[in-house]
């Protein structure tokens, strides 16, 4: 996992925390993660994007991306994104986690918190610009692929979607494989799928998807 050739974007490094090499970004701590020399460990168990990077998926990140993050919740992952990316729009629908998101945004000058419903991009298309480099999506509602499809208009033609699909949010009784297949099918309305990988052991029954608009 720690091959020297690992393609990490500018702003993400492997650093040593308590003798263990871990992914890290530079910024104020947000959720009690270990820190050292201004760097904060990025816990793949608490972050689907962290798991996708940890698993070596071909994420194509270089650093400095203008980003739309859907499902920002309390800001655990989006705070790491804002540490290495450019302007980062953080969309979260629920007011309670949004309070923690505001706290995470305080020390991050290009983290833009938006209390909006990711299923309704028309309610924030007057704020979020087009031609984005990156959409990161981690929403736990039914119709996750549809959310990604509806938000595809924000991406530049060569932009990327990094998506975590949670099988249990779609249908708890169906086999995850069947749920994932249907989600990928739906995604192909607007995206070309570049790669997929299960996020075990960090997140059970989640599929990491990397895609670009068609």
């Amino acid at each position, binding site marked *: 996992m720690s091959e020297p050739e690992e393609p990490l974007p500018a702003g993400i490094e492997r650093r040593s925390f308590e003798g263990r090499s871990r992914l890290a970004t530079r910024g104020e701590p947000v959720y009690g993660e270990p820190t050292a020399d201004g760097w904060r460990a990025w816990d793949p168990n608490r972050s689907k994007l962290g798991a996708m990077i940890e698993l070596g998926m071909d994420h194509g990140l270089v650093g400095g991306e203008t980003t739309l993050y859907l499902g920002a919740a309390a800001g655990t992952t989006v705070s790491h994104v804002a540490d290495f990316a450019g302007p980062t729009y953080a969309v979260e629908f629920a007011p309670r*986690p949004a309070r923690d*998101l505001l706290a995470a945004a305080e020390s991050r000058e*290009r983290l833009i918190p938006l209390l909006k419903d990711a299923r309704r991009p028309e309610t924030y298309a*007057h704020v979020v610009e087009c031609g984005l480099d990156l959409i990161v999506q981690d929403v736990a509602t039914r119709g996750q692929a549809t959310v990604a499809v509806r938000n595809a208009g924000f991406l530049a033609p060569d932009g990327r979607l990094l998506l975590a699909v949670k099988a249990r949010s779609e249908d708890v009784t169906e086999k995850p494989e069947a749920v994932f297949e249907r989600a990928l099918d739906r995604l192909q309305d607007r995206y070309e799928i570049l790669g997929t990988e299960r996020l075990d052991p960090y997140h059970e029954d989640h599929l990491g998807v990397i895609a670009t608009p068609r």
Partner: protein
Amino acid sequence: MSEDTDATNGGWFGGLDPEDDDAAADAIAGGRAEVPRDWPRLAIDSGFAADADDYYDRLRAAATRATRRTVREREGADDRQLIHAVRAMDDCERTANEVAERATEWAGAIFETAPTGIAGAREVADREPSGAAENRAVSLAARAADLADECDELAGYIERTAPAVAPNLSAMAGPELAARLIALAGGLESLAKKPSGTVQVLGAEDALFAHLAGRAPSPKHGVIFTHEFVRNTRPADRGSAARAFAGKLTLAARVDHYSGEFREEIHDDLRERIATIRARAEGTGEEDGGRGAVGVNGDE
């Protein structure tokens, strides 16, 4: 797209005074657009921002302000307001129906045609009265329509605030049922402290006391019957569904009261449990009958 003729093309900063922070927050919170555009460039071209850095500074300040304001507003709601709102909503609904019935009955005696119900009262309220009796009947119909409007407003208030007061309970039961459970228990804290068997029959107190007096079978569900999980489960399995649902609702109320964080797993667990219970109905006839009966016995 073509109706956006000004230089800002419908962006959040269109027509804003760059110094007016509140107006900027309003624009972020309430605006909309069908398609995103290159807002930073348009903002700079229109003179709203000096450069990209200036634009993002302004945007972040406005977005943070809008988000903080909404979070505060929703968190200002507490379970006491919710209880008043749900009781007031029921009062308005009941009274609106009573007054509408009286008003339309009266109108029926005056006008040639007079429809009934709330919709009828609205129609009567719009008529031009002539004479003292018509004045009174039309005015009465207008009161019924007003009460019905207030009922809708209260429903909207509950819809908006219940998720802030009890996020898990609201996600699980829907905002209205969540508010009803809180009202029946007398508050979120007392709901959180009730055993799930009590939550299962909240709202069915008459039936419960009849049962305790030996006059009736025990009720299988109270107000939670209004939820799809219970109502749309076949009668033989409804007791099981109600018990499973009440168990998770109790858990949701406890999480809401003691932690206030949204907890995904309990919602997954419930969906799974209800799916299992409903799968019984898809079994073979023989097995189906047997398991259904066990389910009912287990609940009583």
